[in-house]
């Protein structure tokens, strides 16, 4: 599914190197977690995978189903099945949530050569997915993320994921700012989507989320590199001892 090889990334505006040789292989159907202290480069990795401007790849490559992901525009990546659940979902006043979702879904379908969904078909699809995530239909009528609480914004990200059905979902600190009920809902939403042909990259600072979304593999990231890889137990170990021990061990 996803193959990250020796990825080096720096900021475009300043000469600051953020990723210093990331290697990661995410096979079909697996859930990998990336944990790490603040400033380790986790969010940068997610933005680079989604195609955000402002980063320069100085070395390495990223293959998505064998294709050069970094050569694609963000919208092409989305159409191929890459989805980023934003850490800070963006508010777009004046664009209705439904219009946004429908435009996105149909643009992706069009890019893949699939027929676009009619208004009625789309409505049915969204209502069903929203219900499962306990999203108030009123929320769908409002402008994208405008006036949403933190939890509502995150649930809205998961709704988008459920509707767009990506092959690779990257969840960037989706747990931040969520209370335990919202966390459970979000995790259920993610677990419902787990499938043999769908992979997840779950970026988180805390182990808590991983109690609900149990990963196949856990990577620890620090200072722009993945420094340890293990199974779900690794996350629990980190939770107990903190990152300091691992960092010390390495030094």
């Amino acid at each position: 599914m996803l193959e990250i090889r020796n990825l080096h990334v720096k900021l475009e505006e300043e000469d600051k190197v953020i990723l210093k040789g990331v290697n990661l292989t995410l096979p079909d159907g697996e859930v990998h977690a990336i944990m790490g202290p603040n400033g380790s480069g986790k969010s940068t990795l997610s933005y680079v995978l989604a195609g955000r401007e402002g980063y320069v790849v100085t070395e390495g490559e990223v293959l998505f189903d064998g294709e050069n992901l970094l050569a694609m525009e963000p919208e092409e990546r989305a159409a191929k099945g890459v989805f980023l659940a934003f850490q800070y979902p963006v508010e777009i006043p004046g664009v209705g949530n439904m219009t946004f979702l429908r435009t996105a879904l149909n643009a992706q379908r069009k890019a893949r050569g699939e027929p676009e969904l009619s208004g009625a078909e789309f409505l049915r699809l969204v209502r069903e997915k929203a219900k499962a995530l306990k999203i108030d239909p009123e929320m769908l009528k409002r402008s994208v993320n405008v006036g949403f609480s933190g939890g509502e914004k995150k649930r809205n990200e998961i709704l988008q994921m459920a509707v767009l059905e990506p092959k690779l979902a990257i969840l960037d600190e989706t747990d931040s700012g969520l209370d335990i009920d919202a966390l459970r809902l979000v995790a259920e939403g993610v677990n419902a989507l787990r499938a043999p042909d769908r992979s997840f990259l779950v970026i988180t600072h805390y182990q808590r989320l991983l109690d609900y979304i149990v990963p196949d593999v856990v990577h620890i990231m620090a200072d722009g590199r993945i420094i340890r890889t293990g199974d779900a137990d690794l996350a629990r170990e980190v939770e107990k001892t903190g990152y300091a021990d691992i960092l010390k061990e390495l030094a």
Partner: protein
Amino acid sequence: MAETQRRENPAAARLAAIRLPEDEAGWARAAREAALSRLHKMGLPSRRDEYWRETDPSALIAPEPVEAAPLVTDEAPVFGEIDRLKVVFVDGRFDPAASDPLALEHVEIERLADALKADIHWARDLFGRLEETAHDPVPRPFAALNTATATDGVVVRVRGRAPKPISLIYLHRDARSDAVLHHLVRIEPGAELTLLENGPAAARFSQLLEVDVAAGGSFHHVRAQGRDHERRAITHLVGRVAEGGVLKSFTLTANGALSRNEYVVRLEGAEAVTHLAGAAVGDGAVHPFHHDDTIFVTHAAESCESRQVFKKVLRNGAVGIFQGKILVHPVAQKTDGYQLSQGLMLDGDSRFFAKPELEIYADDVKCSHGSTCGAIDEEQLFYLRARGVPRPEAENLLVLAFLAEALEEIEDPALAEDIRNRLEAWLRRRQG
């Protein structure tokens, strides 16, 4: 000698060349002469005048219009799906064959040219009378020029709720046409009318709409200006609103070498309301785009409400001007005034100039104004693209979102939908 002078001073030449229409009733002739005399006193504008600094009036003053090719398009006409009374003008001349019969329940409607020939006519109390009041403190010479020389238009009196809108359709066929239309609308107490206008009308177009809204009456105006690239237009909406009356106007503009839309509205009775709004989309890549909204709203009575919402989307050297004023008289306590002017620049070449003015002489009022000028939000753009929306489509969504607040000023949902669909189609076409 005379020849040299003419070349040096086109304004003087234009004034000297004015001939008032013949064969009109005495009162009409008197109104024309009064307008001409006002015009001579104020003179035609130049860029030295404060409200013409950002807009060059010379193309409006020149003896002949600049040639403008009529736009060839296969798209359905604006308001095509709306049930309306169609009144068609071709290059500024009423076309009875293309129009519906001038008959509508609760409404008297006739040609201006006919009204001005009648010795006794209610239009006598309106023709040029509101225009006359619109020059203090800012002169509007083209409005006076219009009253003096207008050749056609409609005269409308509404006594109840008009069952459907009157739709003025301005077709443009002749690349050198120079149209001067003048309309009068009198809304009797409690009566209601929606007036639609669409089309370029001519290569050069002067339009003046005098609207008198009596107590409790309401007037809704929705306009789509023609998209002929080289067309030039100067329009005026001069309105007076009595107690509890409502005057609302929305204008959609895309293309046009020059659009100067002036609004002069006086709220004269308690709890009168006016909402003025405009959405303009301009691309200066191939043809120039210059759009100017110049507004003067006067609160002359208590507890009135006014809103101005004007939005402009500009790219490739397009120019947008907003000059909006709210004047609150000492008697106009409890005034609620709002003014918003915003420019969205899609590149670094375009220019948006805003001059918001508040002049308040009452102490118990609520007046706010805001003006912004900015680019597309990169975060929003990335969010849309990350969900699979291609860049041009994402930009269009954000442009529509930016304009939404102006479009929301259109009250009738069917008209709002029509305008929105039109705008979407234009944006999509541009991108394709």
